[in-house]
């Protein structure tokens, strides 16, 4: 079995990065979080606009995003900074969620710890200690089967469904053959391809959950008063040659290969199974929310297939951009990692393109920096909302 060099965690997980996460519990702690992260070697801030005045179901989803991000195997230690008290999602609640992983967690409360400056000092000391503590960890060999490989597509064009997405599906098959798991979200873009997906479902329950997920997302769109299918495919999709919603969705679902779909997950929920194969998750097509939901589910690495080119990068999950559009690669080569446009010119077969994507993913798992990581760009943490602010 193939191996990568990763960070082994107390609970048996293996990370591909060893981040110190400075996590904001609420929008009002974001400023302290950013200052702590600025001060400490290797610290990564995760900030967001949530954590206050959310209806309970929405707050539970936010809690799952935040706790899941901290539980991700790529995180070595966590400092959570909270403002005062949000019933149902305090820093202590989050720390309780994270505790089973065995990783170091500290909480700081701006009010209880004596205000902004005192909280900043306290959190900075925790962060300094944790940064040194996790610096003692060394990479060690681990089987590729330990990888949960997320996949996303965004800014798609005609080339996406023809090159980058199917190459990515083949890369996923190579990982699954090594005992790994691949995760795809964005159920809005399963519409029109439900049967292609349910044919792969490992059980009738998984098939039913896939159908229910698409229906729920469609109903959500309809509740806006607009029929989503009134604009799918969009005018520019059709100008670009996409004829029907089936054709557009097929390009999107080709991000996974032909292996069975083992489990359907709620948004930002970790798989309950370890069986090799494909996993799918309910969620929107909105890229930052989608990749954040997959990081919260425990994906250590993600490929982001993009026709038009992209800058998306998650703060703790390396985000490998793959394009099949050579023009986009030329324009965006400082953030797009892999060019598989050679499949159109017979320079590459799809199988070779799949191997290229897999090899890049495996290298990144062992520590090779993505282009966006090298830029220290940190733009794609976002939390899906399922209720209004009240």
């Amino acid at each position, binding site marked *: 079995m193939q191996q990568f060099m990763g960070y082994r965690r107390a609970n048996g997980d293996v990370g591909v990065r060893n981040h110190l996460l400075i996590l904001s519990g609420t929008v009002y702690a974001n400023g302290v979080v950013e200052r702590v992260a600025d001060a400490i070697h290797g610290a990564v801030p995760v900030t967001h606009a949530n954590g206050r005045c959310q209806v309970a179901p929405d707050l539970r989803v936010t809690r799952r995003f935040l706790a899941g991000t901290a539980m991700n195997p790529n995180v070595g230690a966590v400092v959570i900074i909270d403002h005062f008290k949000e019933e149902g999602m305090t820093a202590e609640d989050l720390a309780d969620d994270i505790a089973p992983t065995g990783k170091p967690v500290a909480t700081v409360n701006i009010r209880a710890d004596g205000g902004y400056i005192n909280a900043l000092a306290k959190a900075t000391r925790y962060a300094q200690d944790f940064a040194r503590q996790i610096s003692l960890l060394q990479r060690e060999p681990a089987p590729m089967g330990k990888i949960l490989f997320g996949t996303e597509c965004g800014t798609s064009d005609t080339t996406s*469904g023809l090159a980058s997405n199917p190459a990515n599906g083949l890369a996923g098959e190579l990982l699954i053959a090594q005992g790994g798991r691949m995760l795809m979200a964005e159920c809005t873009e399963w519409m029109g391809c439900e049967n292609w997906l349910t044919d792969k479902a490992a059980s009738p329950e998984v098939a039913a959950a896939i159908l229910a997920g698409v229906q729920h997302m469609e109903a959500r769109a309809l509740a806006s008063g607009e029929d989503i*299918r009134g604009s799918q495919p969009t005018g520019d999709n059709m100008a670009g*040659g996409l*004829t029907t919603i089936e054709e557009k969705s097929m390009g999107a679902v080709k991000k996974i290969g032909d292996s069975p779909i083992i489990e359907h997950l709620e948004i930002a929920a970790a798989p309950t199974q370890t069986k090799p194969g494909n996993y799918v998750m309910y969620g929107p097509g909105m890229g930052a929310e989608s990749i954040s939901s997959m990081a919260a589910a425990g994906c250590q690495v993600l490929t982001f297939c993009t026709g038009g080119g992209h800058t998306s990068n998650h703060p703790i999950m390396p985000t490998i951009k793959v394009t099949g559009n050579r023009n986009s690669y030329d324009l965006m080569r400082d953030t797009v990692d892999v060019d598989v446009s050679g499949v*159109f010119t017979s320079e590459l077969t799809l199988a070779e393109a799949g191997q290229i994507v897999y090899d890049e993913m495996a290298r990144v798992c062992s520590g090779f920096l993505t282009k966006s990581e090298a830029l220290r760009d940190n733009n794609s943490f976002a939390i899906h909302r399922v209720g209004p602010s009240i």
Partner: protein
Amino acid sequence: MKTVFVVYADDNVGTAVLEPISAGDTVATNGERSDIQVAARADIAYGHKIALLDISAGATVLKYGLSIGSATRDIHAGDHVHTHNVESNRGRGDLADS
């Protein structure tokens, strides 16, 4: 000679992702199918599809080895394949039985 890309071996359309095609051009295929040559009967813009075989009215249009819809009229090898001669079979609120 122009070339279009074919995703799966049993597809009956190819996509112009290398170069646009003009009516009258001889068009070959690459990708997963390279045994077909057709004469383009229409201009095919970048990213658009050309029929590789005759497709009868009502027959399935295959891309990715899967149905992307049905032909609404007889399509001849070399025709431009798009919204004017293919319709979706999914999400059709306008059809009584769906």
